[in-house]
Each structure stands twice: as structure tokens, then as C-alpha cells.
């Protein structure tokens, strides 16, 4: 028999799958935009919620993947199936970069608040570097980096076979994101239930004790860091594909703090709450930003304060728990 929690998850995904049938493409594209941010948040939930390692570096990996995808696909625009292998190579670059950063962090003995400082520094260094690449000398092959204006004009994800084009846009892009989210949530759930997940959860409590049981904690944390970078990279590539551009501001201080707020407010220990919470919070930010970007930032800060003080397990997680328990209460009547 299905657990009530699973019924809730199925209901949410059924609703998401019905949206293109009920709303026009403008709304579908908007909701695609909200969903693309869930992958960076899920990556943070993995490294922070399960591993106890707070990283501000998610946006660095987001930007790296976005820029890598743009650079590769612009340079090889005429090569067959560039829209398929360019995002894959960009993801590989991001995961390898994540593993390298993770190696120096964990094998270098950097832990706790210092990880937050180092990862934030990496993000800001990347942003600053990319912002000063406006001159014509800053180009990789045919791809001009364009400084603060960012890159645009890259071929989209997809493939062109003779006269037929299968590009990721509109409703197709929306469904791709929903199915990808379902698949990745399932993978993350499997990781959580695995021995790897158990070691990661335990290392959050006491690293040395886990080592003393014969597990190589540093290696496991490095792999997890790389996986979380990969998830952030998925968001970066989908973002670049969605809007057809990528700018250094996607790696700025505000951008770096947003995933932390979304994940904390949603409930960092529950992947599905993070997925749902991220969609809702990005929607709220977007709606407020129409009247001025500062309102969204102020509200997000306020939500973080309220969450930290009153809902340490996350507002969305608490709401989900309430809804699930409420339905079980009704069933008993």
C-alpha cells in the first residue's frame, strides 16, 4: 500500500504534468524557470542536509556549467549533435571541478564555517573574473565572454537531423525538466537509503567516529561535493538554455545566498520539500521582482530569519508533514 507521503508526492507531480494542458505556453515557460532552480537546491540539500556541509559554491558550479555549455556550443555550432554532447561535456567539466575543489577542501582539512567562506570566495572570484572579460581579447575560439553583459546566441539543447529539429524549448523543455526532477529525486532517495547515504548522514554527526569504523569519509564527502556540483551544473545549463544567455551576476553574492535560503526554508533534510519549496519560493521572488528586485531579496531574508527561529526543519517540510498527518487523521474518523 502506498504511504501517504508518497501519495502527496504523486499528487504534486500529477499536477505538474497537467499544467501544459491547462495553461498557455507563457505560464508553462515561467514554471519551467521555477523548476530549473530545483536542481541546484537539491544539490545543496545533498551536501548540506545529508552531509552537514554548508556550501556557498553552488552558484559557482551553476555559472561554470552555463558558461562551459555556451562556449562549447558556440564554438562547435555546426558540428553534429552539439546540442546533445555540449551539455554533457559541460556537466563533466563541472563535476570534475567540483571534485577538485572537494579534494582540496576535505583532504586539506577544511571544515565547518570555513567551507562556507572558501566556497563563497570561489563564487565571488569567478563572478569578478567573468565580469572583467568585456574586451575582445577575452574570447575562447569564436565565443566572446562579453564581461558583465554575459554570453548569448548559443545553440539550444537538442538535435537537428536533416530538416527535423528537436530542440529543448516550450512544452518539451517543461516536460523534460519535470521528468528529470522525478528521476533525480528517485536517485537521491536511493542514495539516502544506501550505505553511502548512511555514512554521509553519520559523518554529519561525528566524522572521526565514521573514520574509526573504517570508512574513508574524505573520499565520500569529495564525491558528494562533486555530485552536488553536478546538480548545480544541471541548473546552470538549463538556465542558459531557457533564456539563451548567461551572465556573471548568476554567480554574485545575492545569487549565491538564494539556494541557501530556498533549501533552509524548504527543509534541508527532505529532498521533496526542497523541490517543492524551491518552486514556490522562486515563484514568490519572481512575482515580487516585477515591482522591484529589492522586495524579493528583503522577503527572502525575512523568510530565512523566521525559518531559523521558528521552523528549523523548514516551513515546507512542516506544511507537508501537517498535510500528510491531517489526511491520516481524517481517515481515522
Amino acid at each position, binding site marked *: 500500500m502506498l504511504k501517504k507521503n508518497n501519495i502527496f508526492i504523486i499528487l504534486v507531480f500529477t499536477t505538474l504534468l497537467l499544467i501544459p494542458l491547462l495553461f498557455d505556453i507563457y505560464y508553462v515557460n515561467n514554471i519551467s524557470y521555477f523548476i530549473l532552480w530545483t536542481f541546484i537546491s537539491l544539490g545543496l540539500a545533498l551536501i548540506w542536509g545529508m552531509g552537514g556541509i554548508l556550501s556557498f559554491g553552488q552558484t559557482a558550479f551553476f555559472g561554470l556549467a552555463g558558461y562551459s555549455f555556451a562556449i562549447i556550443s558556440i564554438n562547435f555550432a555546426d558540428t553534429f549533435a552539439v546540442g546533445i554532447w555540449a551539455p554533457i561535456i559541460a556537466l563533466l567539466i563541472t563535476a570534475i571541478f567540483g571534485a577538485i575543489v572537494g579534494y582540496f577542501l576535505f583532504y586539506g582539512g577544511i571544515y565547518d564555517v570555513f567551507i562556507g567562506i572558501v566556497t563563497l570566495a570561489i563564487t565571488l572570484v569567478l563572478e569578478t573574473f567573468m565580469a572583467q572579460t568585456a574586451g575582445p581579447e577575452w574570447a575562447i575560439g569564436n565565443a566572446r565572454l562579453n564581461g558583465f553583459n554575459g554570453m548569448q546566441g548559443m545553440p539550444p539543447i537538442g538535435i537537428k537531423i536533416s530538416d527535423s529539429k528537436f530542440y529543448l524549448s516550450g512544452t518539451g523543455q517543461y516536460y523534460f525538466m519535470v521528468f528529470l526532477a522525478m528521476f533525480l529525486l528517485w536517485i537521491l532517495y536511493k542514495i539516502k537509503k544506501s*550505505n553511502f547515504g*548512511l*555514512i554521509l*548522514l*553519520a559523518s554529519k*554527526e*561525528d566524522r*572521526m*567516529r*565514521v*573514520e*574509526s*569504523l*573504517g*570508512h*574513508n*569519509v574524505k573520499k565520500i564527502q569529495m564525491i558528494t561535493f562533486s555530485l552536488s556540483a553536478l546538480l548545480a551544473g544541471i541548473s546552470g545549463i538549463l538556465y542558459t538554455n531557457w533564456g539563451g544567455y548567461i551572465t556573471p551576476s548568476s554567480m554574485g553574492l545575492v545569487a549565491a545566498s538564494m539556494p541557501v535560503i530556498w533549501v533552509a526554508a524548504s527543509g534541508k533534510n527532505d529532498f521533496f520539500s526542497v523541490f517543492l519549496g524551491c518552486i514556490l519560493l522562486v515563484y514568490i521572488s519572481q512575482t515580487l521582482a516585477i515591482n522591484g528586485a529589492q522586495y524579493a531579496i528583503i522577503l527572502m531574508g525575512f523568510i530565512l530569519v523566521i525559518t531559523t527561529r521558528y521552523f528549523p526543519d523548514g516551513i515546507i517540510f512542516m506544511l507537508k508533514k501537517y498535510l500528510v498527518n491531517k489526511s491520516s487523521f481524517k481517515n481515522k474518523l
Partner: protein
Amino acid sequence: MSLLEIGSVTKRFGGFTAVDKVSLKVNKGDIKFLIGPNGAGKSTLFKMIIGVHSLNSGNVLFNGKKIEKLSLSERINLGMGVKFQAPSVFNELTIKENLSLATKSKSNQEIFNFLKKFGLENDQEQLAGDLSHGKKQWLDIAMCSISEPELIFLDEPTAGLSYEETKKTGEIVKSLNEKGITFVIVEHNMDILKQIAKSVAVLHLGKLFFEGTAKEVLSNNQVMNIYLGIS
């Protein structure tokens, strides 16, 4: 050949020498107690052997293999088990999950039977954080012994335990020793030492002060003088 050989190991913290050229041998099947007053260097030596502290000089051999350059987890995988001073169980995990972290190859029935020794067989789904202090200590010992390592280090396994709990801890260690596991135990409690010790090493001011059987140690006036203040 001894199971563990510690050859003239030294550890300095700045200008302070915590462990000074200590040499020790632990034979297979032994239950060796490491005792001494506070500041004698027992815990530092313990941490040097398991790889938490690096050595300034000397070497450590396990089964004839040099291990001083290996990490903690690498040493454990050679056939060691470790229990630290404070109970280091994972409070947010169940007893069963705690044990799963310590072994990959045991079936549910084997885990159940193993937990009987510790009186924890019916609490498998309980969170470790909800256990009493005594049960946490036993779970901690269970975690380092379930994979049946050749050598187990216990740092103060009876700290905070009642007389009855201390006695039961001694019985648990003795039964594991009878199955072939060798123990090195850092302890202050003389009751458990009298109950199960096969050999004792006394440390004082970072140096090996005396070595012998429990009876020899307890009847040595100099040891009693430095350790208990009895002359």
C-alpha cells in the same frame, strides 16, 4: 611475533613532550590495560597508535607491518576496532543503522544474536540518542567489535558506569576476548582491571613506568604511590 609493537614513540606538543620514547608489545589474545594518573600520556599514546595523532619519532607495527603513515580508516581496515573516551554512537540513527555502519556482511539474524551479548537485541529500531549512558557505551563496544577485528582499543569503556554496569562491561570484553579478539584498554577503573586484565602497562609523565601482570602492578609500591598516592 607480537600483534602490536610500539617502538620508542614520541609525541611533542610545542615544547611539551606528552609521550617520551615509549615502547610496548601487545601479544595475540592479550587484554592489556594502559593506566596512569591524569596527564600520563595514555590517551595521547592511544591516539598515536590509531592514527589520530602523528608521531614525532618511533614506529608502530601491526602484524609486522608498519602502520604509522596510514590514516585512521586504513588502520581500521587492517583489522582494528576503536572506541573513543566519550560514547561515540550516532544519536540520530537507530541501533541497527549504527551497527550497519560498522559491518557490511552480517545478516539480520547475526546482528540479533550479536546484540544479545550486550542486552540490546530488542532495541534495534530505537534511536541511539534515546539510550541510557551505559547502553550507549555497550553499543559503542558492539560497533567496534561486530566486524570481529584482531585488535580493539577501548578508551575508558567504564566511564560513567555503575558498579553493575562496569562488571557487565568486563564480562562482555572477556567473552569477546575468548573468541580471539585482543584488547588494549585505557582505564582508570581498578575494578575492571582486577576483573579481566591479563597485562598492565603503567605510564607516568609520558614514559613507560612499569609493566607486568595485574597482580604485580597492584602490589608495586612505586606504582601505587604515583597512581593512587598510596606508598
